């Protein structure tokens, strides 16, 4: 049901006529996020320019019982930034200002709509950077990163988004403006700020943040090693972790991925390599030397077929190219894929990867693994042709089987993409109904009316398998379009 004209008029009076969109063709832009799963256009999109405007919009929604969803760049991968059954999208793209850089406390105060990478760009002259680096960082906004508690390649050393948020300005689900934390990063009594990070917009709207800035490392060196067998590579990963060396990044690519990037970009990796690992070390000279000595020993011990390393930036980027172009390269094999984001104890890497390969064979599907090995965050990409319904069915069943394997070893169903709509039904597989009820009680504290980003995170008590498959079918079909459009680019989708 469309919003009442009087509500639209009031919204226009709050943010200006130009920044309230109700035209169908504009609303279509906001019908899904990077997950592309369920398409449902909002009834209205408003683009406020200040916290006060956000608060006024939320207050109006609260008074009129209209659901609202905060949205940044729409790059989320779990279907969190869309309205499910009508409502208003509050787009924060105009609130992209960097308010203050405080080099004394090594903090920056920014608006939620600022693009992640812009923060580092602004503070680099002070030899500082903003550490959370989701692969989408050149586009995704800080508000979205906070909502999803985004990870990234370097979070194995530097931590995920929540570890770098010191303060938050939030608009509550009733439209009140509140500051949680500050430059000291603390709160009396209970860490409300920490609870808000990762709440996927279901508590209210984050409008500003104080972020921690990290001093740039003195030196950086990247190593890329190819291994003949999967087990050699995972043993090498565990040996690096067990040595106590703290890599800045530790990434993995399997045989399917290596072949795909070799074919697509002529990377020249050994054809008989079942796996590649990419390790980045940073720190002072002594730390780098100590780390390098460990890597040399490990690569030798596990019979690496080929080892490359790079210190200068151009060379490093060349090595990173294999990792960053992996997903685009899958397009040469099949036009689409279905992606998971589970995390497992790292000690189970070998067993779980072998199980994933076995599942691939069992269901006759191709699985490419490219993921954050350092923190056990798997990204199995099950490749498919969306026009082949039998294959799609097998892919979905295989994906479900992979999730079960991860859960069976003490893993979790999402490490950095969030739950949103995509994995809401799967939450019941990870948590008991009592545990979900406890989480719902937490939600009720901040979002009594339920108007802030409704229907996300929690199962809606539909037939679990049926819903997941329905959602996933949409997902895989749409991803085919995404990958086709990006096939000619160096980088594919962000994972």
């Amino acid at each position, binding site marked *: 049901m469309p919003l009442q004209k009087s509500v639209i008029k009031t919204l226009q009076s709050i943010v200006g006529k130009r920044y309230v969109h109700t035209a169908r063709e504009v609303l279509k832009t906001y019908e899904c996020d990077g997950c592309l799963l369920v398409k449902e256009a909002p009834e209205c999109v408003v683009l406020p320019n200040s916290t006060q405007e956000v608060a006024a919009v939320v207050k109006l929604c609260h008074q009129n019982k209209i659901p609202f969803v905060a949205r940044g760049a729409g790059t989320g991968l779990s279907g969190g930034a869309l309205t499910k059954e009508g409502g208003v999208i509050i787009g924060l793209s105009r609130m992209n200002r960097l308010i203050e850089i405080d080099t*004394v*406390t090594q903090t920056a105060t920014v608006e939620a709509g600022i693009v992640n990478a812009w923060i580092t760009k602004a503070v680099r002259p002070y030899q500082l950077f903003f550490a959370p680096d989701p692969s989408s960082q050149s586009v995704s906004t800080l508000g979205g990163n906070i909502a*999803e*508690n985004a990870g990234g390649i370097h*979070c194995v050393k530097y931590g995920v988004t*929540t570890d770098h948020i010191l303060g938050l300005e939030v608009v509550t689900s009733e439209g*009140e403006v*509140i*500051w*949680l934390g*500050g*430059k*000291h*990063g*603390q*709160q*009396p*009594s*209970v*860490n*409300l700020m*920490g*609870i808000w*990070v*990762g709440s996927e917009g279901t508590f209210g709207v984050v409008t500003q943040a104080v972020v921690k800035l990290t001093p740039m490392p003195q030196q950086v060196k990247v190593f890329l090693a190819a291994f003949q067998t999967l087990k050699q590579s995972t043993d090498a990963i*565990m040996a690096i*972790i*067990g040595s*106590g060396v703290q890599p800045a990044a530790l990434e993995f690519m399997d045989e399917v991925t290596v072949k795909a990037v070799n074919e697509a970009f002529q990377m020249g990796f050994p054809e008989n390599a079942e796996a590649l690992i990419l390790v980045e070390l940073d720190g*002072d000279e*002594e730390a780098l030397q100590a780390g390098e000595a460990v890597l040399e020993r490990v690569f030798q011990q596990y019979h690496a077929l080929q080892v490359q390393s790079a210190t200068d930036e151009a060379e490093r980027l060349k090595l990173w190219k294999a990792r960053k172009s992996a997903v685009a390269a899958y397009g040469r094999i099949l036009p689409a894929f279905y992606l998971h984001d589970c*995390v*497992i*104890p*790292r*000690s189970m890497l070998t067993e779980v990867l072998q199980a994933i390969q076995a599942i691939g064979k069992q269901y006759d599907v191709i699985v490419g693994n490219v993921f954050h090995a350092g*923190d056990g*965050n798997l990204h199995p990409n099950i490749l498919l042709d969306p026009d082949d319904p039998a294959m799609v069915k097998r892919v979905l069943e295989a994906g479900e089987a992979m999730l079960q394997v991860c859960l069976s070893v003490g*893993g*979790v*169903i*999402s*490490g*950095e*993409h969030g*739950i949103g709509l995509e*994995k809401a039904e799967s*939450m019941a597989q*990870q*948590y008991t109904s*009592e*545990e*979900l009820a*406890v*989480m719902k*009680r*937490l939600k*009720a*504290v901040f979002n009594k009316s339920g108007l802030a980003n409704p229907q996300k*995170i929690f199962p809606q008590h539909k037939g679990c398998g049926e819903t997941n498959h329905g959602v996933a079918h949409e997902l895989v079909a749409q991803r085919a379009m995404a990958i086709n459009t990006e096939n000619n680019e160096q980088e594919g989708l962000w994972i």
Partner: protein
Amino acid sequence: MTQYTPLKLPHDLAFRYEDLHTVVIPKNKAELQALIQWANQSKAAIWPWVGCPKHQIPCVYIDMAQLDQAKSSALGEFLLTAQTGLTVGQVNQLLASYQQRLPLQYAESRPLWSVLNGDAISLTSLPPRALVQSITGIESVTGDGEAIHYGGEVLKNVTGYDMTKLFVGSYGQYGLLTQVTLKTQKQPQAMRSFLFHVEQSEDAFKLFDTFQRGYHHIESLALFKTKTTFGWQILLTLAGLPKGVAVESDAVAEVVKTLNHDLQEMQVATSGLAKWRERLDFTNPLEPDALVIKLVLPDKHLINWLPEALGVEWLRAADWVWVSGTHQLVLRWIQHHMPLEDELLLLKQHLLAQGGFLEILRCPVPNHYMAALLNQNHQPMVVEWEKTLKYQFDPNAVLCRPGWESPTT
């Protein structure tokens, strides 16, 4: 001495509630859950046992000492799963056999649950939130007796709300943590500690600021004074790889020589650090008569505020400990020169104006209204959230915070 009264749970739960000195020692989480459920039915208050009975209100003490198991199987990937009745000392002993340690160092006598509650003082130069950042999994029993788990031996987790943030550091108001999985570290290859005695406050602040500005290998940098020490002391520990620690140790010696040749420098044996961790843990529950408050401001602002603070007699009279990197100054008064209530309220206003805050960690008078008043957040909506959280997770307010005021229903 308080008598321990071992009880067979859960059948004997309707026991001697009137006995102020009853201490229950649950053997496992199920027993703890049963006790909390009984407390809800009986509207009984529960206090974690902190070593001595203090409060003249009817309650049951829980001693978590029997929740003392640890799982070492994930230590190869620097993760330890431990029950919270273990003491820091017991955990350190286990980790030492794997050449590992906890990411933050605390007094060895502290049980894990009390560290996780959030009021233990660490001398590690990391923000207090570094503790919760090192936790990857929790098991907890909420105030209404619901057992929950979140996370585990996984380094990333965005499945639902981050329950570690609710239960770790919230003083046990919403639930009792029974088990945690936390990140451990490799023991540093090199470590050197120095203790400096400085008579004049100006010299002490200058030296402390010099250290906190220019060194990469600082593990611990604490500025403190207590009524048993003369003048000011600075405890500095450098840790890391051998070359870096050696270079910075030499630089420390040079700075000390340049600034004031009368300063004493002495090496502190690693084992000696444990003693300082105990002595400077001002919220140690065995000191029940202390008033302990925490002033929170960014470190870089604190250093400018210190001379001003020294001009105030009641602030000057306190024991002080400030650990660089924590953004907090902890003050303790033990039955001497305690501040008046309006003085604390003024200080609170002063800190709020600068973007900081004040929090009471220990109050010598339980149920004192000042503790609640001073700790009350200045934003009404936050107060509302805190109350609702308490109601949602501990509806009968059976969980009490040791050394602090009793819960409000």
